[in-house]
């Protein structure tokens, strides 16, 4: 039985047990004088029975699907002949993939090891029995659950409260997903990073100035440990982020100020949505724009005044990233500026200050903490931005502060290391996770501080 038909059966069963539970509650109530003698409405008895059917059945289904692969993997290997057992883990996973292929499509190739064909047959029979067993076990669990539920149906049974507490458990679990996600992120980057740091020292990684992980692909090469000094990546990231901030902060801030303090309602209503379009454009589009339009034109401009500009200059990526962040800065500043009470402005106007004096000397200082928080969030965004730099910045890990040179960033390297032909568990792949750890740590710190500042600021004027 396939998984999807099992799910359909469970759903049909859920409906059936709902009707059963409801019916049973009504028949319990009938001799007492109708359903108003029940503790809860009949539907709650139905829902209760239905939930006690579906939760065990679906729970077993989910657990089964998560673990059946590894169980089958172990069972298949257990039945393998000696000469295959002796292989290394990497070779094993390669062979296992082949066996999976044979199991799924069959193989007419006579050169294949007969042991593998046998293993594939074994795997198929295991898969079959696994599916049958799953269907039996999950439906059985459902039946037991709903039987208990139905036996509990009495006029005094508090079905509503039980159903509500089950729903509440679901609500609590849902809200905990945020925490689980964070834990998942930390665990996934941390574990792989620790394995990376077994082969490359953290000191070398964090303070080394030579980055060339490509060398490490071939194990037999002399420099097989490669160059894993990430400083050029960090400086590249900082350079591009700095250029982006140089564009985004003044433009975003000034347009927010102009729109909230000077512009008429009409202008504001027209301009704001247009600027917000910039926030909705996917980053891959910016990347395309940067790589195919901005970078060549910057190069041409540079050449026309005799500058040598790399075709993957940090300037192009930074400029476009800045444009992307403009609406982000501007909407955050807008919120912050609006939080400054009108009384402050009145106080300043009442003394005869002009608008710009009021903004520069009263509103801006008052809003400064909030703006700083917003800019920090924007920086964190620039550091973590991926597609623009992947498409418009290069792979060359240059240690330079010249915006006309090509630089590479942390995110570019993560993508490159994990999307090419990769070898699992090589320092090269693991390095991506180490970079991810650094990226996560930095952005998390920035976010926590920034959100703290912004919240503090909001409270001040509430």
């Amino acid at each position, binding site marked *: 039985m396939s998984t999807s038909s099992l799910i359909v059966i469970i759903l049909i069963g859920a409906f059936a047990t709902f009707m059963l539970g409801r019916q049973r509650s009504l028949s319990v109530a009938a001799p007492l004088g109708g359903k108003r003698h029940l503790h809860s409405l009949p539907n709650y008895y139905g829902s209760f029975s239905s939930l006690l059917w579906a939760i065990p059945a679906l729970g077993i289904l989910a657990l089964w699907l998560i673990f059946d692969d590894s169980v089958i993997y172990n069972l298949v290997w257990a039945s393998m002949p000696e000469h295959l057992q002796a292989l290394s883990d990497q070779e094993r996973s390669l062979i296992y993939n082949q066996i999976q292929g044979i199991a799924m499509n069959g193989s007419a190739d006579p050169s294949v090891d007969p042991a593998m064909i046998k293993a594939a047959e074994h795997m198929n029979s295991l898969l079959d029995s696994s599916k049958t067993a799953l269907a039996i076990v999950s439906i059985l669990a459902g039946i037991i659950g709903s039987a208990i539920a139905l036996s509990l149906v009495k006029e005094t049974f508090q079905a509503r409260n039980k159903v509500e507490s089950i729903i509440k458990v679901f609500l609590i679990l849902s809200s905990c997903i945020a*925490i689980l996600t964070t834990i998942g992120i930390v665990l996934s980057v941390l574990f792989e990073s620790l394995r990376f740091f077994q082969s490359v020292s953290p000191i070398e990684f964090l303070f080394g100035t030579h980055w060339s992980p490509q060398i490490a692909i071939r194990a037999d090469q002399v420099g097989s440990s490669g160059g894993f000094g990430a400083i050029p990546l960090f400086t590249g990231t900082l350079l591009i982020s700095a250029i982006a901030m140089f564009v985004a902060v003044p433009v975003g801030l000034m347009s927010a100020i102009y729109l909230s303090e000077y512009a008429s309602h009409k202008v504001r209503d027209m301009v704001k949505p247009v600027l917000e379009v910039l926030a909705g*454009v996917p980053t891959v589009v910016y990347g395309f724009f940067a*790589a195919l339009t901005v970078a060549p034109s910057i190069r041409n401009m540079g050449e026309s005044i005799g500058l040598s500009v790399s075709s993957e200059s940090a300037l192009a990526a930074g400029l476009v990233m800045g444009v992307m962040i403009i609406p982000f800065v501007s909407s955050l500043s807008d919120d912050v500026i609006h939080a400054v009470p009108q009384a402050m402005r009145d106080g300043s106007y009442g003394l005869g200050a002009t608008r710009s004096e009021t903004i520069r000397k009263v509103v801006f200082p008052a809003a400064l903490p909030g703006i700083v928080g917003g800019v920090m969030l924007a920086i964190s965004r620039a550091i973590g931005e991926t597609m623009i730099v992947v498409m418009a910045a290069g792979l060359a890990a240059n240690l330079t502060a010249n915006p006309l040179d090509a630089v590479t960033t942390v995110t570019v390297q993560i993508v490159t290391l994990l999307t090419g032909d990769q070898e699992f568990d090589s320092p090269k792949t693991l390095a991506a996770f180490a970079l991810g750890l650094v990226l996560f740590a930095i952005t998390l710190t920035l976010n926590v501080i920034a959100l703290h500042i912004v919240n503090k600021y909001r409270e001040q004027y509430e």
Partner: protein
Amino acid sequence: MSEVKSTIEKVNAGLGKRYRSEKMFQWFGIISICFGLLCVLALFFDIIGKGHSAFKHHSIEIPIMFDADKLGITDINDTKQIYSANYDGVIKASLRELFPNVSGRTEKRKLYKLVSNGSYLTLQKMLLEDPSLLNQTTEVQLITDDDIDTYLKHFVGKESEFERIHAEQVEWLATLREEGRLISHFNTVFFQAGDSREPEQAGIFAALMGSFYTLIVTLCLSFPIAVAAAVYLEEFAPKNKWTDLIEVNINNLAAVPSIIFGLLGLAIFISFFGVPRSTPLVGGFVLTLMTLPTIIISSRAAIKSVPPSIREAALGIGASRMQMVTHHVLPLSLPGMLTGTIIGMAQALGETAPLLMIGMIAFIVDIPGSVTDPATVLPVQIFLWSDSPERAFTEKTSAAIMVLLAFLIAMNAFAIYMRKRLEKRW
């Protein structure tokens, strides 16, 4: 009074300078806004300018003789034979017939290059649909090769600027045009095909379907979970450390770089739980985690906007808290939650980086049929094409961007419309 007078004199003396700086400041603001608007315009003009031509394509109408001998078909009912028949030979023969003067290998090769390498698929499909065509001659529209198409779109009369076209081809095309055999038409291939190495055969349909399945998974998971989480946090959560922790986590996750979610997907979903790589399923899981904070935050705002009086009214007539939520709070806040969900979905639709990490960067020719088929999504397709050097691919990339932007604009416009309607209600 003289002191007062001098004050006013001082004030007036400084006025000119102050107004100049006021003007300057205002101009800074105007320039900033104009810069922003200019960027929007430049972006859209650039992409539309590059991409609009991809929606048209040129075809050549050729009389094709489905010669059974040449095709190598002995039994028309044998589909295997139809699949493996030599269509290229037939096409080449027809081209040679059109231009009998062409001789020499290189010349001939240039002639064959007029139509796409994938033209045999068109003939194959025709023969599969209508076997009676065998040994008949019909006029068939075959799409041109990408270089020919690029030339016809952009370089007619400027042959010297485009080295991928040969003088002979220019002549042949002129002849074909005179004979009315050169047709420009809406590019249906672009919307019906999957990826291809040949630009003229490449389309976005596989990517669109991939995006569709991925979004379905994302929507089915993120909406219920986000609403449940929002309801819990707004209506049930006690004010304690644990709740604070959840809130801090949600706010921070909203600002975590998307690529980190890709790493999570790779390490947890693929390596640990064994979810198949490159599939909309795992893509949907990752995007769910990514969009959850957005939807939770806007759902909470929607729940908050329900007036407390309604809650009190429900509780006052003896509803349980859960009944109050399901009967009153949820229906009233649903439009706001849907608005947030649409915005979250738009964000998911445009997302690229995390999907690269989980292998949705594969070269997908076949249209995915379920959430467990290998697939790619529209933004990743854009990323893949943008790397290709052919001018035709640049054109296609821009066109794919236009399609993506159209979807995003439609979604956001719908969200704004919903929000406007919501505002009217309270």
